[in-house]
């Protein structure tokens, strides 16, 4: 293994190739253990006969408020969703606040009120917290760290090792809206749009699938940073199977599609905050799709491809019938200059 050289770049934090390098070259060699090495959205821990899911995440977003959400809602939903992705029922959160000296208290109150209503929506409680105030310029307004705890049903078997060739891939709704909403809310592009972040807690939807179609979900991830393409790549590697996604089948709203064309962004690599990509048992896939579509957060769900035996790579089948490999992104996407 080559030791990493140089400095931390912003690109080390965008969920792509450089983030993976940090994890595999800096964190795992020293902190690694069998649980961490699974690199799942949440760790599943056996504790005195009980299965707990445990996760943590930090939230930095500019601007703090954007159409469809804000940093507080994001902090709750992000952690609830990480727990939901391993099949856990989310119960408790902690919240750590890093506040910039000079921040308006009114802003902080709005953020906390929003966390409160998101927590109620998800049915979780914030049971521990911490506050630090740092000098002006050290952080951008508010940063929030959350940890989450949930319980995993004792009999649940979910994870990459349960995926079989032939299983279907399901996306719970149209992609890319969160990233577009945030980019547009910065106001740098002077584009009017009605696009809203999809930021939402997914535990209700996942719970519906697990109760109505037990055993159908094999493995799932939420495509946040790096988008659908990135999680598809990561999941394919974890399963050791090839994932084929059909470009035509991936849900995308007309407005999001038009904005991506205009800005030169690839919607497959844009962040989502209220969607999942799931590997579903092939025979129960249609039933799971029905259940999703009956839930408001899964109304736009679609079956988008399948897992096949292979070497752990993700592919996209284009509308013209060609097949191309999907990759982890190297660095953030920027609107085009041309």
């Amino acid at each position, binding site marked *: 293994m080559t030791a990493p050289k*140089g*400095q*931390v*770049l*912003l*690109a080390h934090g965008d969920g792509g*190739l*450089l983030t993976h*390098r940090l994890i595999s070259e800096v964190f795992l060699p020293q902190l690694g253990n069998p649980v961490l090495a699974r690199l799942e959205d949440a760790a599943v821990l056996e504790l005195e006969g009980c299965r707990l899911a445990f996760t943590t995440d930090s939230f930095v977003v500019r601007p703090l408020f954007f159409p469809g959400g804000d940093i507080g809602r994001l902090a709750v939903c992000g952690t609830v969703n990480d727990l939901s992705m391993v099949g856990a029922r989310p119960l408790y959160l902690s919240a750590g606040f890093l506040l910039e000296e000079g921040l308006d208290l009114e802003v902080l109150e709005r953020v906390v009120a929003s966390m409160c209503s998101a927590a109620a929506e998800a049915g979780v409680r914030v049971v521990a917290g911490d506050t630090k105030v740092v000098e002006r310029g050290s952080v951008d307004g508010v940063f929030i760290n959350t940890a989450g705890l949930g319980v995993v049903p004792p009999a649940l078997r979910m994870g990459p090792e349960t995926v079989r060739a032939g299983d279907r891939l399901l996306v719970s709704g149209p992609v890319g809206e969160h990233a577009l909403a945030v980019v547009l809310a*910065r106001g*740098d*592009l*002077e584009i009017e749009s009605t696009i809203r972040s999809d930021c939402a807690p997914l535990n209700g939807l996942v719970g519906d699938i697990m109760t109505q179609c037990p055993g159908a979900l094999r493995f799932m991830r939420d495509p946040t940073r790096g988008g659908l393409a990135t999680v598809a790549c990561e999941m394919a590697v974890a399963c050791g199977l*090839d994932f*084929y996604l*059909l470009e*035509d089948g991936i849900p995308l709203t*007309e407005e999001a599609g*038009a904005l991506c*064309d205009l800005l*030169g962004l*690839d919607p497959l690599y844009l962040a989502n905050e209220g969607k999942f990509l799931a590997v579903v048992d092939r025979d129960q896939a249609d039933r799971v799709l029905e259940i999703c579509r009956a839930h408001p957060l899964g109304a736009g769900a679609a079956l988008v*491809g*399948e897992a096949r035996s*292979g070497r752990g*790579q993700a*592919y996209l*089948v*284009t*509308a*013209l*019938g*060609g*097949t*191309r*490999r999907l*990759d982890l*992104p*190297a*660095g*953030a*996407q*920027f*609107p*085009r*200059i*041309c």
Partner: protein
Amino acid sequence: MEADRPLWERFRDPGIARALVARVRVRVARELGGHVSLMEVCGTHTVAISRSGIRAALRDAVTLVSGPGCPVCVTSPEDVDAMVALAESGLTVLTFGDMMRVPGSSTSLEAVRARGGRVRLAYSPMDAVSYAASHPDEQVVFLAVGFETTAPGVALAVAQARELPLANFSIYPAHKLIPPALRALLDQEVGVQGFLLPGHVSTVIGRRALAFLAEEYRLPAVIAGFEPVDILMAIDRITHMLVRGEAEVVNAYPRAVREEGNTLAQRAMWSCFAPADAAWRGLGPIPGSGLGLRDGWEDLDACRRYGVWAQPAGAMRTGCRCGDVLRGLLLPPRCPLFARVCTPAAPQGPCMVSSEGACAAYYRYERGDGDDGPQGAGAAGPR
């Protein structure tokens, strides 16, 4: 019903696209000796051609080579070095995203930022002006990169800065003009039989400004939009002209491009810019191919203000062959470094950095169809 569908949907209709692919293939095989080489002169086309699978679908019949159509890629290493020098001298430098990672002769803006330099992303030139207005204690330089499409916006921002007035705003002018580059390219040797012309640039300069390709060089060329069907229709039209021995510059993007272009944008551009000599990566110096600030506007030129000028840069030590890629002489996968030493995570040249660069487009969308790829790619895919 065809007419009920939104227009843009028809421009990406896979059925129409496949029919066009088939027609072009048959025409090239029967009437054009089995092979045609065309050049696309726009980074957005390059990406669209790779991403939609058009290049793969036409393989063996039509080779689409990428020309100097990515504004980041054609920015010379000398210019990047000067931009880095500005950032290292304590000024605040604002730039479009893709410029961040482009290597100069020794380092990039991204690395300067990681060492504490003030390098910030701008999404538009006006952004840079508002940043300067709200940070009066910083000296702000906007790196003005881009073709005729971006220059009018920069001109408006420059005018705004003067009107406010802002004493702490200037630009590093590195704009490039497409027609002189095409002439320079054609005066050297290029083995292409026709051009796919850029939709965005043409929106500003108009069809007329590109008519010389047919009138002087006898080459067929089509101005095209960016949907797969747009691009395939243009290729269809060029091959049709080749069969008939015709040479014309056709505007196949009339929903955006006019004969004279956008005269308002042109007027804005010429209000503060004048043609200047510019150095292109790959093509070298080309007279009159860039934009400099006009007499009376020089005080907004960061080079003069801070005495930082582009210095001749040594040859790229890395062995990067972007220069050949930008002239259409080398297809990215043939570069010995492609996908081995040079990847988007460790780019050796701008063509691998920029999201509009040819090497990045090949890497991202067209790698892995060989022994590296899925068994039976193409026919594959769940139904």
